[in-house]
């Protein structure tokens, strides 16, 4: 009996810790309200532009990329999507060319590029892998955040629903969700 109670408590504590970790958002970033100048990425004036920043080795971002794929499939011509994979200075190309790169490239209609030294990430004020930043056709910031319900988890989530609502005309002007993923940058500035 006692053993059972102890076990139940330990297990519950363990599962709670696991969920707490999964729900802990990564460091938030603050993207600029208008499309930043100087960005390598070409913005089309006739549709919304979506930018996702990804750390090539972050396991949690697989879910984000998966969600992106379903978003793009739903929105197609209303969205121009770009995925930027971080490539820190001094590291070779194959450090960046992981399965995440492959999955992102495989999404039709998505442009997948390197982000040397994290320049673009900094430009867009992104700090966490999987962060999605959406600007409307006029270049105004409409969404900043993650499109997964928890770290590395796929499934229905608020972020994806928000973007869908925005672009199909039924949503709010602006929304923000937490991003679940690894930090893009080291603790000290790289």
């Amino acid at each position, binding site marked *: 009996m006692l053993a059972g109670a102890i076990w139940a408590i330990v297990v519950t504590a363990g599962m709670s810790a696991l969920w707490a970790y999964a729900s802990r958002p990564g460091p938030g970033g603050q993207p600029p309200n208008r499309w930043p100048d100087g960005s390598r990425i070409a913005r089309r004036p006739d549709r919304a532009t979506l930018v996702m920043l990804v750390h090539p080795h972050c*396991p949690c971002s697989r879910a984000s990329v998966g969600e992106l794929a379903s978003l793009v499939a739903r929105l197609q011509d209303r969205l121009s999507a770009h995925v930027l994979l971080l490539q820190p200075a001094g590291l070779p190309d194959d450090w960046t060319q992981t399965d995440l790169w492959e999955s992102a490239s495989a999404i039709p209609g998505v442009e997948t590029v390197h982000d040397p030294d994290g320049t673009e990430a900094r430009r867009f004020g992104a700090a966490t892998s999987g962060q999605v930043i959406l600007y409307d056709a006029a270049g105004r910031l409409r969404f900043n955040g993650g499109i997964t319900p928890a770290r*590395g988890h796929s499934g229905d989530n608020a972020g994806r629903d928000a973007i869908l609502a925005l672009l199909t005309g039924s949503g709010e002007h602006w929304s923000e969700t937490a991003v679940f993923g690894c930090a893009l940058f080291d603790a000290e500035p790289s």
Partner: protein
Amino acid sequence: MDPELTQATERRALALFRADQQRLHQHTDHLFAGLMVLQWLAGIAAAFWISPRAWAGTVSWPHLHVWAAVYLGGTISLLPIVLALVRPGRLSTRLVIAVGQGLTSALLIHLTGGRIETHFHVFGSIAFLSFYRDWRVLVPVTLVVSADHLVRGIYWPESVYGVLSASGWRWFEHTGWMLFEDVFVIASCRRGVREMRSIATRQAELETANALVERGKLAELRSRFVSMASHEFRTPLTTILAACQSLVRYIDHMTAEQRRDRLAKIETEVQHMTGLLDDVLTIGKADAGKLDFEPAAVDLKRLCEEIVAEAQTTAAATQRLLFACADGLAPVAVDPKLVRRILGNLLTNAVKYSPVDATVSCQVAVQDGQPVFEVRDQGIGIPTEDRARLFEPFHRGTNVGKIPGSGLGLAITKKAVEIHGGTIAVESSVGKGTTFVVRLGCPEGARG
């Protein structure tokens, strides 16, 4: 069938059913112990494969999921495995196993990032748990898996500004699917239990029927024995009554010799009946399992010499009784009274059924701590058709002719041999002779 017998049969059926159930539960507990180990290892492998390291920029460290798979997974599996090995078959064990299985599902789903395919583990678990044929184990697993979703939604809701999250309904749907499967599995468990009960009942009824048949057979044997025994007594009684009445009516017409002759007959028949009575009582005791068995350390050679000497007195003057026994035999424990009956009986038979100038030989030895007696005669032999019934009470060979005998001697001998845990074997050839070989077991008060 009388009510007492019906009750006894029902009790037996219940006992058989419980035993079957227990075996099933224990076996399934062991299966789950193995499964838990496999799942634990699978979880670790999944964590290594999917999320081995966490990153911040260029710095990485082992992902929390790996630790979770090892330690949390291990802990979740630990209590179920321990209980399955230490207390298999108990209700608490399988309830803990069900909880553990639910938690394992939750953990695996979590480690694989909520992958749809991993959710199938839940349904597989419910199906596997049905092996117990106990619907109660489905409650903890369903509760744990639903609770995992629900509690997460309550304590760690997605924080969001401006949009209603739809994830609340997912929980409902998952639980709904689990309940759907539960309904069928519970029905199947109950059917399984009903089947087990009916099998147990049928087996108990069969046992009762067999017991009744045995009882009937025994009763019949006993009544046959009684009627044969009473028949056997009537014969000497006839002689006694006739002799007595003769003496009463015709004593004046009899010569002295005729009178003496009759009195001697009466005496003989009374002795015959007394012996018969002893034999019948002995067989009765042996049958009821009440024959005294008192093994003691005896000097086997001396005991057998005495028995042979006694048998010699019943033999004709021209018959020879040979006794062969080595010196310094290994010590054995036998019941001397029963050995007297066994060996004495075989010797008197050998003497009785042999011609007047024949030789009877008796060999005694000890092999592997077991006493072995061999009695060989050159007598009338035992016909093949009598072999099967040789040791039956009152059975006499078809070739005994006038030679008197109660037909109980070998029956008693066999019982005495069996009480020693021994065996008796016979070889015979009609007209040439018979050999009996008796091997007594090593009785530590053990019966054969």
